[in-house]
């Protein structure tokens, strides 16, 4: 019971706002720390890949960016489900705060994928199942952001956006498998971006980079969530107190 009570307490923007503010520096610091360690291992220590040469080092950012782009979409869908089921104010704000970061991660995944593909496949863009799915994921992010931006009433924006996320998350596996099937039928490239036979240091470097991206996403999303909170709750007493406090 007590646990549940706490959860509801933190779900209220008035308590979440200062908490998020205190947490952002830690996540940012962790992100920098993991990033430096990951770059050190990945860029300086890890040996070259015998098949891909030094070009393989792109995967140290490509893979974490792809993971995050998919993970963030799932997290947004999770918040959307909570928001629609329990009608919490916080969940819609979190989904909206996460969306731009997710879209940027999808873009980075595509950008680094293209730069990896040029020397490896000989083309900037290949209709590979994974790259194609990533592109569609970027479209889904853009659709979500366009929809929520077009609705003036924040409550309706949250709910409509949430519903779109749930529809999207049901469709993502269908889209992925259909694209994969399409790809095998048309005999697309079968070269894998990730190799299972990775050296230990490479694996550690990649894990550290993934943690760096993860912490980074949390920090930026919290930063954005705080701004959205202030904006939405500007007529409440806590925001007025907060603004008066900042002024001091």
């Amino acid at each position, binding site marked *: 019971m007590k646990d549940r009570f706490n959860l509801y307490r933190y779900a209220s923007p008035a308590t979440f706002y200062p908490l998020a503010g205190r947490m952002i520096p830690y996540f940012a610091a962790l992100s920098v720390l993991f990033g430096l360690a990951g770059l050190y291992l990945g860029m300086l*220590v890890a040996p070259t890949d015998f098949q891909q040469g030094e070009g393989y080092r792109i995967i140290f950012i490509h893979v974490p960016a792809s993971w995050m782009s998919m993970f963030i979409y799932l997290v947004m869908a999770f918040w959307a489900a909570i928001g629609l089921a329990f009608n919490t104010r916080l969940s819609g704000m979190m989904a909206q705060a996460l969306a731009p970061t997710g879209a940027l991660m999808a873009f980075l995944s595509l950008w*680094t994928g293209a730069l990896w593909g040029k020397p490896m496949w000989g083309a900037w863009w290949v209709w590979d199942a994974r790259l194609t799915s990533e592109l569609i994921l970027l479209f889904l992010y853009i659709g979500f952001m366009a929809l929520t931006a077009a609705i003036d009433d924040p409550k309706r924006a949250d709910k409509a956006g949430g519903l779109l996320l749930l529809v999207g998350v049901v469709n993502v596996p269908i889209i992925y498998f259909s694209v994969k099937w399409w790809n095998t039928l048309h005999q697309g490239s079968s070269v894998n971006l990730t190799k299972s036979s990775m050296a230990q240091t490479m694996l550690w470097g990649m894990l550290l980079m993934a943690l760096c991206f993860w912490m980074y996403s949390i920090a930026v999303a919290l930063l954005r969530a705080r701004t959205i909170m202030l904006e939405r709750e500007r007529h409440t007493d806590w925001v007025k107190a907060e603004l008066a406090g900042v002024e001091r």
Partner: protein
Amino acid sequence: MIYWNSLSDFLAMGGYGFYVWGSFGVTVLIMALEPIMAARTQKLTIARLKRQLRAENRNTAE
């Protein structure tokens, strides 16, 4: 420990320099710009809300 023999080796990336640094450069750029933009939006929002609050207070005081 360090895999590279010289700085120029490191920068050349075995001939893949353009691709590797192109990827890392854009990633660093985006991951630096996004927090800066988000922080700037927050600052502007706080300033605007404060202005609105002050205007409201003035109206109620009169």
